[in-house]
């Protein structure tokens, strides 16, 4: 229903005064308009603002790919490393300077492809790094090839007869590697991302956030916005995040239930 001009002006004024977007960089992000990364960026920003984390005490470590550009668009320290090495580099940063809040961001290619070997080790070392894996099941920066989380049959220029390799389930991997905090989120629900991150940041130890998102430019058939909006739904109410076995079962049976799957109590 039409909002009155007064109300709208007031709403915008309050946002300005709240400085909620001071976390953003001055320049507009270069992601394609409509990209899910904007939703994730919104979610993470609100979490940082809600917790009042001082920007100079934050480091965002990123890999190669569209997500690699993330640090350039936030008003924090950033380390844009080489393809697949986000987690080892984050380990170094956190151990060297523990009072920094370290976020690691990367795509499904960077995290499950070339960087797949590093996830088990940061998990079992339980380094207090908040790792957001943006999962849009495609290599976007190289203009559309199947990624380790692309489904069988997924058609791209590099898989004209349909992708042959079975996809990896990142949440299940993180749980099986012993990650002490695992959440599954959706780029179209920034509020959900914020709530999970606030808890994740508070959690002392490796926190893994598997975020479903859509590549509007190169994926017109699988993880489109319309599909994701139909598939995702909240975790069942009775889900107990402290129970690892239940979390693993949930990750096995239902790929699209959102929320905090597992949170190991210290």
């Amino acid at each position, binding site marked *: *229903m*039409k*909002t*009155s*001009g*007064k109300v*709208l*002006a007031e*709403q*915008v*004024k309050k*946002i*300005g005064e709240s400085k909620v*977007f*001071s*976390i*953003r*960089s*001055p*320049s*507009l*992000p270069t*992601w394609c*308009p*409509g*990209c*899910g990364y*904007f*939703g994730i960026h*919104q979610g993470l920003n609100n979490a940082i603002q809600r917790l009042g984390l001082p920007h100079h005490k934050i480091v965002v470590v990123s890999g190669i790919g569209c997500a690699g550009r993330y640090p350039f*668009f936030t*008003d924090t320290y950033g380390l844009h490393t080489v393809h697949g090495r986000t987690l080892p580099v984050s380990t170094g940063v956190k151990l060297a300077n523990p009072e920094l809040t370290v976020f690691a961001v990367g795509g499904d290619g960077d995290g499950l492809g070339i960087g797949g070997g590093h996830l088990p080790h940061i998990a079992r070392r339980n380094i207090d790094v908040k790792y957001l894996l943006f999962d849009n099941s495609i290599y976007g920066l190289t203009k559309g090839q199947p990624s380790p989380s692309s489904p069988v049959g997924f058609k791209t220029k590099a898989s004209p007869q349909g992708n042959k390799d079975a996809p990896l389930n990142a949440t299940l991997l993180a749980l099986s590697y012993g990650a002490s905090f695992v959440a599954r989120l959706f*780029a*179209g629900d*920034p509020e959900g991302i914020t709530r999970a991150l606030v808890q994740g940041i508070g959690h002392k130890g490796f926190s893994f956030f598997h975020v479903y998102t*859509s590549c*509007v430019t190169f994926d017109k058939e699988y993880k489109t*916005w319309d599909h994701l*909006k139909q598939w995702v739904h909240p975790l069942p109410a009775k889900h107990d995040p402290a129970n690892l076995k239940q979390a693993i079962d949930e990750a096995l049976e239902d790929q699209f239930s959102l929320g905090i799957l597992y949170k190991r109590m210290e």
Partner: protein
Amino acid sequence: MGNQIRYSVEPEDFYYMDVNVPCQAACPAATNIPAYIRALFEGRYDGSYSINHMANILPGVLGRVCSRPCEDKCRHGEPELGRPVNICHIKRAAADLRRKAPPPEPGPLASLGKKVAVAGAGPAGLAAAHDLCTLGVAVTLYEAFEKGGGMLRYGIPEFRLPREVLEEEIDYIAATGAILKTGVRVGIDVPIEDLLREHDAVLLAAGCYRSLRLDLPGEDLPGVYPGLEFMMQVCAGKPPSIGNRVLVVGAGFTAFDCARSALRLGAEDVTICLRRTEEDLAVTKDEAIETKTEGVKIASLMLSRKILGKERVEGVEFVRTRPGEKRGEGKREVVAIEESEFVLPADCVIVATGQRPEPIRLTVGKKGEEVLKADPDSFSSSMKGLYVAGDYLTGPSTVIQAVGMGRRAAEKIIRDLTGKPFREKTVRMEETEITDRKRAWDYVARQEMPTVQPVPERFRIPRTEVETGLSPEQAQEESKRCYLCYLHYEIDIGRCIYCRYCIDVAPRDCIKLVKEVKTNEAGAITGFTETTHWAEVNAIVIDNSRCIRCGECMRVCPVNCITVTKVELTERTAQEGKDHV
């Protein structure tokens, strides 16, 4: 989502309507233009006609003779966007293509037990009579001429307004119960005082039929005719003989009607002489082009000084003029240039330089000749119960202005008689779905009105209507061009993820990265402080004054946070809150 409906009489929302539906704001009768164009697009010709009929009781007539103030303000006519929608031709198409039956009326409410007399069955009188009858008032309509219609019948030639269209729409008004008494001149055959005694109120809408004279030497020579008289003789079927060379002095619709009628009466060389230039003409551009193609010549910057001739008119002496300063909003001053006299020969001269109302003399009062004084806003006059409206009040204006005034006068009378407002303007908001309007429709060429071709064919039977009306396909195609500005697109800031997909698909700069939204005291949005500094982008906002309602943003929004609301300026009967739409 259930279609939630809300009404508002907030000044902010009325301001919003003026800015966002400029065509309706420009229409003196405040016709709900987007609604009737959408109705026609959906093939609901009757629906379109009745939406029109609510605001202006003569859609068929005005579809032909309206001066179209709405089209000048149509957003599709903005410099970047091409040419305005043919709103008037669509109105006529709805009237032509509908099932010929009286439009639904709100129905006579319980009789108010009041009696009102209306003097003058012109557009203003007819509009007032219609509204009064439909609200339960017994109305008697007195008309000086033998038939109703006023200027519509006696001032406008048949090739522009066929009589059967006029009669049909007058009959609909009679059907509401108004009693029409023709051949009765109020103030002469029937004194006003008698009417005031027998009725609770009297409305004078007698129009203005007294031609203005130029008061030039030789103006009374035979062969010199005032514009209105010439047209009334032509319309009455007894045209004067005018010879070959005709000079018409004047710049309004009457002058153009006289010139085109002169051609149809066989004149070879017809020239319209303007004191200023073609730019300052009061008629529409199409009218000027149509007149020139029929062979009329238009000469400018010449002021008539003397009409020459012994027994008959033989010529006119003019003097050159230079355009002077603009007087406020009005026309430019006319400054004659010394010693620039010159003569043009003529067999007939028509002076069509405007009219003024015929004062109705009151027998009451000392001098017995007391002339009426009336207030244009409240329509009430110096005598209680006596109201004035239409051209009779304001002097020559347009048909649509007369209709608008007639309706507002009826409302004022009802309020005075019953002590309660019976109808109020309100802004109706209803959540709605996105339309099926396609971006490609913005490039549909404007459908031109087909006319009788070749030109001589129009003169064979002088009363043939020149404009033959849009075909159903043309009307449908033209209705696609309307942006439907009564749709309000809005981004819910709470759910927006600032991904700028909407801006990417926007056809123009209609969606803005905004730091601050500026409003006026009433609270309506008047502007934005834009920014490209991402940290200062507090919101992404649709600028409704630039939005052409294409709906692309809504189709792509990943988080579906763009909603569309139908926001219409309508009228509601005050008592039961039942709304007319």
